[in-house]
């Protein structure tokens, strides 16, 4: 049995309808199955498959012919799946057990739903590329340092605290730390180090005016 014949990139780039029609009929089932492998929701699969082809049509002008169409298409599908899962990210393990429903994570989720808190507006609307680059650079450097020092567990603790939003009292148990204070210590050191790395990139902290007041306000917990 022969596999699908790659669509003609030239025809696709000139928005040739019959060629796109053929490409869509040929690849639709495979993209759908690929999405379905990660997302067990039929409606979502259909939406993401559509969205993948929409992205393929929109971006075809930038299609790099050193790749084939399949690689191009599945690269888009993969990004769509990741974006979808990122939006749907489930709650992390422990905060659900909080009897008062006041976990940090739940609080953050509520704030996300409320959307425009002043900080989010500030970050969302006024953040320049420079600000984002400085932050990402500092974080990458921090991760690299932890990685090179072999501090994998500490890195996982940082992820649990800041990315999953899990509280110190849950984190120390999960990672077998000595106690809650140890988790707070890791948090404190991470904040301090990232702050230092950020200052190296932005000595006057001019990119982060909203954090000026908080410089002295960091707490161990």
């Amino acid at each position, binding site marked *: 049995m022969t596999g699908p014949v790659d669509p003609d990139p030239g025809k696709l780039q000139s928005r040739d309808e019959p060629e796109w029609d053929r490409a869509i009929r040929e690849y639709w089932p495979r993209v759908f*199955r690929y999405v379905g492998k990660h997302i067990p929701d039929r409606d979502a699969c259909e939406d993401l498959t559509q969205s993948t082809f929409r992205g393929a049509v929109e971006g075809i002008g930038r299609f790099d012919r050193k790749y084939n169409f399949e690689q191009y298409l599945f690269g888009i599908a993969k990004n769509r799946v990741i974006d979808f899962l990122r939006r749907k990210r489930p709650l992390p393990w422990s905060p659900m057990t909080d009897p008062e429903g006041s976990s940090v994570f739940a609080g953050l989720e509520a704030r996300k739903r409320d959307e425009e808190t002043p900080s989010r507006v500030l970050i969302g609307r006024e953040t320049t590329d420079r600000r984002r680059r400085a932050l990402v650079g500092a974080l990458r450097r921090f991760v690299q340092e932890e990685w090179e020092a072999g501090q994998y567990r500490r890195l996982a603790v940082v992820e649990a605290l800041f990315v999953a939003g899990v509280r110190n009292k849950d984190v120390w148990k999960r990672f077998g730390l000595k106690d809650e204070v140890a988790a707070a210590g890791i948090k404190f050191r991470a904040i301090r180090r990232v702050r230092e790395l950020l200052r190296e990139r932005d000595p006057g902290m001019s990119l982060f005016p909203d954090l000026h007041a908080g410089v002295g306000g960091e707490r161990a917990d």
Partner: protein
Amino acid sequence: MEWEEFFALEIGRLWLEERVSCPHRNLLQAFVEGRGSIEPAAREFVAFHVGELPCPACRVEVEDLKGASLRPSPPLPRVPPPPAGTAKRLLTETQLRERSRGK
């Protein structure tokens, strides 16, 4: 805003969006295949990052790697055909969008 709040609100989001701590694909491959080239502590980190955090991008990578190397193919689900006229619709939509952007 205090630094701790800033971390919780903004850095957590950026961390995943920018894949700040995502292990290299080779490491994920070693993790999936259970190879010895990944030290136990690093394996624990990857397990947490992929399984518990969970990082959506790395989850997809790991599932893809499992699909490619280990897992027998699951039975193929019934796939609905593309809606009739999909190509025409997508091409028209794209054209309209580009026009409205003045492209």
